[in-house]
């Protein structure tokens, strides 16, 4: 059985974690926590970490003992520097809270790349996890901001992504809010949908890695996939229904842009992939699956496949890393522009302030 640690850092990470916990109750009802119990496929420990206590209070399905407020902080105001300082000041306390939950095989660190706490804490926590847990696989689930959310968010995303890559994270699963906001008209509903999608896929992945499979994929395969290409990838998901014609079309559905959390052309951009198919035995034609995977392999290279027998219509989860991320450069360009703009605004403000102060230079207050 896998020992899984799921950390939700910052407001966004907390909400994704809360969605995971809600999903584990087996229903979407707000009251499910009162009449049901969490059922994780493996031993899963969850912990929501935040510097803003109000963000922790908003969580609905995360037990109080699984919420950790970094003391003496009331949010870091999207300031990564403050966030990093806050982490260093409370590092032992934070890591002790994690370590008391036991040993782990894999850790999913879920965060927003743009926020203050998440973007600053995540690289440092990944670094500490790698240092303290031997052979742990750490995968960051990073949510990229709306591009128009603000210049600070953009620069935070840019620096945060870089920091995460520098601390030897085993892989980053990208979730692009900009790309997914199309799911709903209003932002709040879009956020909730995005969180639910991430939660559903992560739990599916954990369950598959920890199940007896007809065709085996395991944590090692997953780690190999995540360490391919740029070590950045995303998740695709497809749940077939009566209209779905074949398993091949279901597998295709999981790697089509509509089923992905980050916009990519899998056939063109993917470096490595893992396809996990779950469903009743009568739906699972191994030959058909093999052919579909082989077809994908000719385009991508290495594709791991896993087949899990479980009652129900076929569900397909695709995990892949990208050899090239076209939008990433655009993001960094936007971030750089935002930094320049921010810097210009600061310079202009400072100059205006200096000019204003110049009027009273050499003067004294007179009463």
């Amino acid at each position: 059985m896998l020992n899984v640690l799921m950390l939700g850092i910052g407001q966004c990470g907390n909400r994704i974690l809360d969605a995971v916990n809600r999903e584990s109750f087996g229903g979407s009802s707000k009251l499910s926590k009162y009449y049901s119990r969490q059922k994780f496929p493996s031993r899963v420990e969850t912990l929501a970490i935040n510097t803003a206590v109000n963000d922790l209070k908003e969580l609905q399905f995360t037990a109080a003992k699984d919420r950790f407020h970094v003391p003496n902080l009331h949010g870091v105001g999207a300031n990564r520097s403050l966030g990093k300082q806050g982490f260093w000041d409370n590092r032992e306390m934070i890591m002790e809270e994690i370590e008391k939950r036991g040993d782990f095989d894999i850790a999913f660190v879920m965060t927003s790349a743009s926020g203050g706490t998440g973007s600053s804490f995540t690289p440092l926590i990944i670094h500490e996890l790698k240092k303290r847990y031997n052979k742990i696989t750490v995968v960051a689930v990073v949510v990229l901001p709306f591009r128009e959310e603000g210049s600070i968010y953009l620069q935070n995303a840019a620096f945060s992504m870089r920091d995460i890559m520098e601390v030897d994270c085993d892989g980053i699963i990208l979730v692009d809010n900009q790309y997914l906001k199309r799911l709903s008209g209003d932002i709040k509903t879009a956020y909730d949908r995005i969180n639910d999608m991430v939660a559903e896929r992560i739990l599916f992945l954990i369950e598959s890695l920890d199940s007896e499979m007809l065709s085996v994929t395991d944590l090692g395969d997953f780690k190999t996939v995540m360490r391919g290409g740029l070590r950045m990838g995303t998740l695709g998901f497809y749940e077939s229904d009566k209209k779905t014609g074949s398993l091949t079309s279901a597998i295709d559905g999981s790697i089509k842009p509509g089923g992905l959390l980050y916009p990519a052309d899998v056939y063109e951009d993917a470096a490595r992939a893992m396809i996990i198919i779950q469903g009743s035995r009568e739906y699972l034609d191994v030959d058909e699956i093999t052919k579909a995977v082989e077809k994908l392999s000719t385009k991508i290279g290495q594709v791991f496949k896993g087949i899990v027998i479980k009652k129900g219509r076929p569900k397909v989860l695709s995990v892949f890393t990208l050899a090239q991320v076209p939008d990433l450069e655009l993001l960094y360009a936007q971030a750089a522009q935002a930094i320049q703009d921010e810097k210009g605004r600061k310079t202009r403000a400072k100059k205006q302030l200096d000019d204003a102060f110049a009027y009273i230079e050499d003067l004294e207050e007179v009463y």
Partner: protein
Amino acid sequence: MGLIYIVVVALLAFSIISAPMAAEASEDEKKDSDIITRDFSFRVGEGVRIGDYRVELTNVVSVMDGLVEVKVWKRASQFEDWRVMESRRDVNLDGGQDRGGLTLMVTEIFDRDTVRMRATYRSDYGYPEKYITERALVPASIPKLEVSTSADNPAVRSGDEVKVTIIVRNVGNDTARDVALQDMPPLPQFRYVAGYPPKIRNQLQQGESDTAIYSMVAVTEGEVTIPAMSARYADSKGTIYTESSSSVKVEIKPKRRPDIVMEVQPPAPIDHGGRGIINVSIRNEGDGSAYRVEVRGQLRSDGDGLRLEAGALDRSFFEIPPGGRESYSAAVIGARSGSYVLDLKASYQGDGEAMQKETAFEVAVLERKFEYLYYLPIVPVVIIGIWLYRRYREYKY
């Protein structure tokens, strides 16, 4: 003088005229009243005067043989005659009736003391007149026994011993000889233990007494009359006498028996799973002690609805005297509702006889009470409430 002469003459003339008439009348009277017969009764020691004759009854020799002894003598003469007269036979004395003497006949002998006699004699001897003879005035030397019978306890119980005392006392003025108590057949109501048949001394001097005691055990019940005891004896002359005591009544009551009465005070209906106390009282209402009283209690019903500690009702008492009482208690636990019957048996001994008494009593165990049943619907609500509150607290931050 002349007058006297006249009177004398007249009397003389009258006497001359009337003399033949008087002689004729006296002759007739002599013819008619010459011999008369008179009956009289008298006792030994009494006499009868008939003219100058004296007839004295000296002894009744034998009543059965009809022999009496009489002494007849004549005053102012030498005549004296002792005769033993046979009943219903004339005895002529001093020439008999025809010669101016007496003719006597014993007509009836009443007893050893009294006889009736008929005397025939000249009528001029007059009527017989009784008198007490000089011999009678002198006390007779005869023995006289008094026999008394007594029981030491006129009211006994079956199985008790009765001592009968017979006292024979010679109150006469002569020695009683050949004294013997007459045999009496044993009474079936008694078992004779010792001293029976009673014996006394063969001879009792004047004023002497002897006592015979015999003991017997009453074996039946009811009123029994111990018959009069007769003593037979003889005087110096060999005359046989018999004296009897009065009879004695002895009441034989039933045997002393213990009578064990068991009183059980069962507990009030026991609550389901509750405990009850059984109070047992053993009382001897009989008039004899009960020995080796063994009381055994047993639950008649099967199952374990009523749990009685093994032997809790069992008790042993060596003796419970008449009127005595023994009490004890036993605890029972009602495990299941129902009505349970317990038997209590007492076996004991009284006067060597084994006896037994039984009684039964009932112990009720009530149905389980569900007093707090109305709380039942609240329980799930409370549980759910607690559950929800715990969950609320678990997720409250």
